[in-house]
């Protein structure tokens, strides 16, 4: 059942309206109403809004700290992990899923005891699209995206992030964001300037 709605056109002013400037007065009442409202702006560099939990910012690596998913526990015997270091297994799935695969550079070596050690994990964030497909692809829940979004740098080489940067980001992320409930915003108070009171159901 297709419903059409012919629009009503009210496009000419009556004589009274045009002489008394009623159209302007009507508009100005709205402006007046808005004049009395509280400002909704955030003064950016001084005050900052916390990005939500799902925010896709700078990449990080979750570290090997005993919170591994079952998929990693099954193969951790073959890997040479250290406590507090990245839990990457160099499976290259992130690179396969990436729309711009050349931004990754991942290298792994075989240790004397036969285990595998990841020695290099660079990402050139100048080429990154921040789509999150690499995070979806990671089978051991190592790669993650943090809420860091201020990433301006002075040199091109600083835009390339290495494994140790990512470990730090991942370790902070694990403490602050990972365990949070899956809520739409992290800090409702900050959003109240714009939204007013939102009626929550819980």
């Amino acid at each position, binding site marked *: 059942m297709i419903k059409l709605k012919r629009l009503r056109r009210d496009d000419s002013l009556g004589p009274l309206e045009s002489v008394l400037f009623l159209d302007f007065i009507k508009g100005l009442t709205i402006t007046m109403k808005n004049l009395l409202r509280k400002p909704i702006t955030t003064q950016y560099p001084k005050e900052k809004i916390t990005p939500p939990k799902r925010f896709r910012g700078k990449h990080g690596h979750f570290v090997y700290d005993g919170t591994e998913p079952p998929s990693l526990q099954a193969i951790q015997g073959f890997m040479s992990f250290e406590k507090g270091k990245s839990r990457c297994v160099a499976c290259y799935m992130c690179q396969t899923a990436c729309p711009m695969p050349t931004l990754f*550079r991942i290298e792994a070596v075989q240790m004397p005891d036969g285990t595998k050690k990841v020695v290099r994990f660079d990402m050139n964030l100048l080429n990154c699209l921040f789509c*999150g497909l690499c995070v*979806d692809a990671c089978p051991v829940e190592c790669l993650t995206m943090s809420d860091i979004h201020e990433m301006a740098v002075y040199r091109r080489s600083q835009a390339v992030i290495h494994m140790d940067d990512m470990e730090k980001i991942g370790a902070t992320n694990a403490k602050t964001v990972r365990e949070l409930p*899956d809520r*739409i*915003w992290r800090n409702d108070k900050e959003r109240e300037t714009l939204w007013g009171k939102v009626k929550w159901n819980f």
Partner: protein
Amino acid sequence: MQASEKTLNEIKLRIPYVEVKKDKLISIVYVQKELLINTLKTIKEDFGFKLFIDHSVIDTLEAQNRFEAFYILYNVDTKERIVVKTKTEHSLPSIERLWFAGKWAERETYDMFGIHYEGHEHLVRAFMWDTYSYFPLRKDFPLQGYENVELPSLNETVFGDNLTGTMNYRRTHTYVPTLKDLEYTEKNRIKKKAQVVLNWGPLHPGTHGTMWFLFDLEGERVVQTDVILGQLHRGVEKLAEHEPYQQFLVYTDRMDYISALCSNQAWTVAVERLLGIEDIVPLKAKYIRTMMSELQRINSHLLWLGTYALDLGALTIFLYAFKEREKIMDIIEGITGARLTISYTRIGGVRMDLPEGALEVIESFIKFFPKELKDWEKILSRNRIWLKRNKDVGVLTKEDIFFYGLTGAVARGSGVFYDIRKLEPYDAYGMVDFDVPLGENGDCYDRYLVRVEEMRQSVRIIEQCVQKLKTMSKNEPFMAESQDPKKLRLTLDGIGLKVPAGEVYSSGENPRGELGFYINSKGGLKPYRVKIRPGSFYNLCVYPHLMENRYVADAVTILASLDPVVGEIDR
């Protein structure tokens, strides 16, 4: 809907020299190149396929008749779509007498494939500059282009950066136009008839992007207009041929960057139709997608309303609209993780389920939004300045709509019922109730009314989706599960998704018109050819016609009421 067996048989009966083919996804009429114009004319005039949708060619790399051209046409009355195909070596007859939109499509095809059009009035490149010597969408043109120019600025090592390999930019670069090239292009586009040629753009806030307009002026009256496009051309169609299906989704964000979710949805639905898995996509995913893309539609229309009013001098509306827009940005950010380049849909579902509290926030938004909208209408709709600048400016008749291939709010403003959400319901649009607003006169004022009413209808759709999603439990799936993972892999990351051979034209209703994807697959991980039908590109093609004999002051009004986005025009 594809043209039915009956229509195809009638066409076959009427024009005996054509061959017809129909499968589940597409109805095709094959014809020889010499008889193309006659066939198109008969199909247009006698069978009512009046609306021009798209035209391009496929590079088949065969030794004989290398290029396969296709023309997509639509019959608004019987709601049927038909594809006319022909083969050619290097030239085609021009269809500019049948559809003006074809003229622009031909310019693009000439630019990208080097097809010569016989009888084309002014065959110049659409996106590249006129001294460019390659045809980039041909299959023998490499993805990265021919890198044979050294750009000194790229080779400077200012801070002693020592990056190697792919982590650094390459030392050589593809050819970049110089000022001389651009000057030549500008001179080549327009033959001065009147007093002075006025340049508008490419970097002007009134053009809403990087478009370069040339007005040939007689006093303040515009005699002729031309547009130079391509400042934002990134070759998305070429990229599509080199990306897996899921990975290309990321580039659809960057096409129409104001309504990324709608583009995401259109692409995902197109691939799902090609895979034939539209039915196994879970209901929850469908409702989430519909709800999100309607939010995005309101977002996009708000940006349009704000900047349109700003262009005409009503600054307050801009501030009010951006306040509400910020709320939608907050919602989208919380649900998908990004504000602008969203990449939320996945082939077979969505990336994540809705988070806790999302529905409450959306409810709180749609509770207050209609009131705000009413306030703005009170300021604008009967304001005398607004009326003077909008009424009877840029009038489009119904015939114009078909002749110039216009879609979206522009078509509906002129009273043509063309809304893909109703004509070819995708996702949950078939299950929700909403009206399609239609204008009468087809001027800028009607287009304004239509867009405002569309926002109200979007609120209605969101309301229904929220009610439905509230009844669904948290454990319901949001991603389709493949029956046979060996044949069809449906994952969030899209690795290993193989699509069978076939072709499909599927479109979605973007805020700026119909966004269509023609996908030609030869089987495997990557599409063979993707033609994107950008709504803004064809909506812009009417601009020179509308500007004839108008004054410079109307340039902004008319352009903003067509609402083009350069990311989608140039791709």
